[in-house]
């Protein structure tokens, strides 16, 4: 039996601001994880990653991040992605303050 595919989102850092962005279903880059397209099919996820990686004039360091499909959109599986979505824990800077 094939292993169940962990849902993913395409994420990167914006070229100009350097902040975390997520790819939406409409091919835009959003600052909000809740707006990210959740990818549940492995082949589709790879295709979206390849497409996004070509957008070098918009973003840096594109990759697929593991997510749980929650009722309010994708939820990080790993704590690193939780920090990326929120910002640092020592100051209310980054997304927790800006969004």
């Amino acid at each position, binding site marked *: 039996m094939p292993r169940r595919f962990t849902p993913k989102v395409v994420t990167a850092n914006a*070229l*100009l*601001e*350097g902040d975390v962005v997520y790819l939406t279903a409409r091919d835009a880059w959003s600052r909000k994880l809740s707006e990210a397209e959740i990818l549940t099919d492995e082949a589709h996820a790879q295709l979206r990653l390849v497409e996004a990686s070509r957008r070098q004039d918009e973003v840096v360091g594109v990759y697929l991040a593991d997510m749980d499909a929650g009722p309010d959109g994708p939820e990080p599986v790993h704590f690193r992605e939780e*920090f990326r979505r929120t910002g640092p824990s*020592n100051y209310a800077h980054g*997304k927790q303050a800006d969004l």
Partner: protein
Amino acid sequence: MYRYTDFDAAFVAERNRQFRAQVERRIDGSLTEDEFKPLRLMNGLYLQLHAYMLRVAIPYGTLNSAQMRQLAYLAERWDKGYGHFTTRQNIQFNWPALRDVPDMLDALAEVGMHAIQTSGNTIRNVTADHFAGAAADEIADPRPVAELLRQSSTDHPEFQFLPRKFKIAVTGAPNDRAVTAAHDLALRIVTRDGEIGYQVLVGGGLGRTPMIGKVIAAFVPQADLLPYVEAVVSVWNLLGRRDNKYKSRIKITVHEHGIDEIRRLVEARFAETRAAFDGTDLALFDEIRAAFAPPALTEAPTEAFDRAYAADPVFRSWADTNLSAHRAPGHAIVQVSLKAHGATPGDATAAQMRVLADIAERFGHDELRISHEQNVILPHIRKADLPEIHAILKPNGLATANIGLISDIIACPGMDYCALATARSIPIAQQIATRFDELKLEHEIGELKIKISGCINACGHHHVGHIGILGLDRAGVENYQITLGGDHTETASLGDRTGPGFSAEEIIPAIERLVEAYLAHRSSPEESFLESYRRLGMAPFKEALYGAADGKNARAA
């Protein structure tokens, strides 16, 4: 201190102009990220977890008040109002936008600062004893030779594409405050028959394979120093492994070939490099040394200090903890703690930077230092001025009396900022400091250096902490390993791992149990944690952490 010459200023201006054009070409799409990345790294610009990060060099940790004010200006104008001082005496800005970085670099150049070679596979910022030129135990000021090395290594054509980064530290005192043994190359100023020269160590380093540096030369005279250092870097440049980045540092080269073979190769290479030097470096060294001539310190009465010391217990505690012996009578070296309990280690707000700049200008011969322990030093202060300085520091959150104590923690940025981190460091440091402040125990505990790294690369120097903490990712959960008995001084040693790590919730109580064990077992209040550990070994501390040897403690992960 050293002032930029016209040559230096023109070089930095040209480099900034190049980088501005590179940023523009990246933004307009003519450079890919693969092409741009090595260029931005050569100029200190990283892309971290939430934003870009600009690392600015503070050569040998020395700043004047104008430079400190300019750092405050950068923090306010292009960042979020603060900067982070690092364990290599640099400052990092955590939130710049790409488009602003060329302007930030131009602003730095106005005060003789830059970010060149603060990253990349080059010779990095040369660090030095933060008490340089002031310490009572000093043989000679280490900064002139650090500056000579900076000038020689900047844009050095042979050393721009090294196997990996290369870090140099210099100390001019037998008491090693610059962690020299943990550097790729270390210079220790020594004397032989009245002549000043350098003991040279190579192959030290922390990271995933920590090593204490080995002596390659017992005494290198001044005339031979630069060609000797070039010979060392040159031998490694050819021999160092480029097939595996984890084996590329000189510590691995020395380990694989042995110090005797490396010494033989360096001496052979030195015969060639030495011949290329015609004495120009020595003339330059004399000029540099003149620029570091010590300030004229006049002895002043210390009654004001003595009165405040007798009358004010808060001042007395600060003076006992944060002052060090100055070579000049009636003077002291002041360490200003950037470790207020619960604050982020090494962070200073723009307002705090300006306060420190003002104090340095008014009372301190315009000199400031950044220590690798992430504090700010005022190296030349008249003792008579200390009550007034303390009164200025206090309302600005800069009068914490904890230098060298358990809350004076080194912590790397960890996963709150760093893209390489495997766990957070800052909140652990904040919680330990807050907890021991609540217990009002830290002065009772005495000297205890806790050093925290958020990944195996060990920017937080955990291997040489009396208590080292290493944050790891264990199956998707932050986990903290403890090492004991590390030492960053002239008696350098690497800490020993206690055993299994602890979760983020368990690590603070675990540190508390360690400290309780120390207090219970120390032979006297004078015996420091490190001395107790060296006398007693691991057993009592292990038992405090994990319970009695035969039982498995449920708290251990």
